[in-house]
């Protein structure tokens, strides 16, 4: 066997170690006068804009720097981050469940998943948040009971559905509808042969999802989910509808209303949103690298 293979030449590594003696062509770089002109014009423009922004007293840069790290703003950043992360986690868990239900053999589960997406994608997020805020008015008490029988436990709704919980459920459930569609696209993009190959090995359905399909679908799922996470970060500014009053936008608005100076505090909020977005983009980069294993994009893996 071994000798047959040697004869066929397949034992030889495809990469040659010796460096061939090649005299490369001498290439004279082309001149690009247009490029330099464009750079010059843009540089002048950038300087002018920079000057206009930094010297214009209406920006109130002193107020900006006073409030950029003020406790109220920092607390708003914390709450905004928390809302984003928790709501997104809720959305991902719900969407994962929905996408499995969508693929189920059970027609009831399939219709529930379909109906969920239809409802939460079809109504405005602002309306949904208002609704969650009014949940305690609709159902003053939450109770666990045997249908038409005695109650087992009962609690006041406002103790459970606090503004923070209402905001998280509102944002998370709305987002889950969009994520379901993204996840579905990810799984649909896979070759049917992948599941068949796993089945042929004797793998059970849950394991096929987890070990074979999910890691491959992630490659397609992560970029739009990153988009959605950044969208969620900014969507948290709508929780005012609940009303939830501790997030970044509410905090900076409150300060600017007190000072009658909206512009520097809008800049403060904008700076923080940009900073968090940049952080999220770094996270996305590493996730993409991890799930890009074996499919180019990862130069470190190439020989």
């Amino acid at each position, binding site marked *: *066997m071994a000798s047959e293979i040697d004869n066929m030449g397949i034992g030889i590594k495809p990469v040659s170690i010796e460096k061939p003696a090649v005299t490369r062509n001498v290439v004279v770089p082309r001149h690009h006068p247009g490029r330099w002109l464009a750079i010059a014009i843009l540089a002048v423009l950038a300087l002018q804009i920079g000057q206009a922004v930094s010297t214009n007293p209406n920006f109130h840069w002193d107020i900006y720097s006073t409030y950029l790290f003020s406790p109220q703003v920092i607390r708003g950043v914390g709450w905004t981050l928390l809302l984003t992360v928790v709501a997104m986690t809720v959305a991902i868990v719900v969407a994962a469940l929905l996408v499995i239900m969508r693929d189920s053999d059970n027609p009831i589960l399939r219709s529930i998943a379909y109906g969920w997406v239809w409802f939460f994608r079809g109504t405005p997020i602002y309306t949904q948040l208002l609704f969650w805020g009014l949940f305690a008015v609709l159902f003053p008490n939450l109770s666990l009971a045997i249908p038409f029988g005695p109650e087992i436990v009962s609690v006041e709704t406002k103790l459970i559905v606090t503004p923070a919980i209402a905001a998280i459920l509102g944002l998370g459930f709305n987002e889950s509808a969009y994520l379901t569609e993204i996840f579905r696209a990810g799984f649909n993009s896979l070759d049917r042969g992948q599941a068949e190959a796993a089945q*042929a090995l*004797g793998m*059970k359905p849950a394991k096929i999802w987890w070990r074979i399909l999910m890691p491959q679908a992630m490659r397609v799922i992560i970029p739009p989910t990153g988009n959605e996470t950044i969208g969620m970060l900014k969507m948290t500014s709508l929780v005012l509808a609940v009303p939830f009053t501790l997030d970044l936008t509410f905090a900076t608005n409150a300060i600017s209303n007190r000072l009658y100076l909206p512009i520097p505090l809008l800049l403060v909020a904008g700076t923080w949103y940009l900073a968090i977005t940049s952080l999220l983009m770094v996270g996305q980069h590493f996730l993409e690298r991890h799930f890009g*294993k*074996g499919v180019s994009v990862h130069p470190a893996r190439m020989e």
Partner: protein
Amino acid sequence: MDAHISEFCVEMQNIHKFYGHVHALKGVDLRVRRGEVCVAIGPSGSGKSTLLRCINQLESISAGRVFLKGELQGFTERDGRFHPLSKGQIATQRRLTGMVFQRFHLFPHMTALENVMEGPSHVKGWPREQARRKADELLNRVGLEGFGNRYPGQLSGGQQQRVAIARALAMEPEVMLFDEPTSALDPELVGEVLDVIKDLARSGITMVVVTHEIGFAREVGSHLVFMDQGQIVEEGHPRMMLANPQNPRTAAFLSKVL
């Protein structure tokens, strides 16, 4: 009873398969003894791949029975009625077979070694070290020593197919199923894959091979099946059948491919 004493490794009784109104398999009987290499040939659309996929239940059958080592596949039969098994039970039954696909279907997010280890470590639950040794040994057996850390995308078609063969062998199946294993390969790569399959055939493992390689059928096949329009038209010993086909449809097919 679900199991009966059988001298056959694979036994298919009167298999029918419908796709909507298309009658893809029309009452096929196939018996493969332990250690036999059964080769199925025939024009495309004749149902030979479908038949192969019925053996490991990648296709459901519309009528008939499939037995592996005497065990009824996919159902329990009581009082003349068929009760389907759960997906988990079907997965367990599939461990009796290993399958090699026309288009390899390696897991692209795993290295060659991880592909081969996947079955032993995540289906059989072997410890990692044991699975790794097994995978190393199998990669050597298919002539890919030192290629374990490559991803499928970094391997040639022939190399990928050999990894796929190692992956199927890692489950130590009773029967190996090959679905046109060389049809998607560049001509110069066909030989290296066929050599690996020939070597396996000589080692005594039971195999069912769907192929267009008539030379392969003649050389290593112990049983040749010619299918056309969803039926087995003729079967017998490869050399005799290829030299002297009895059925005019077999003769017509062979005259085109030989």
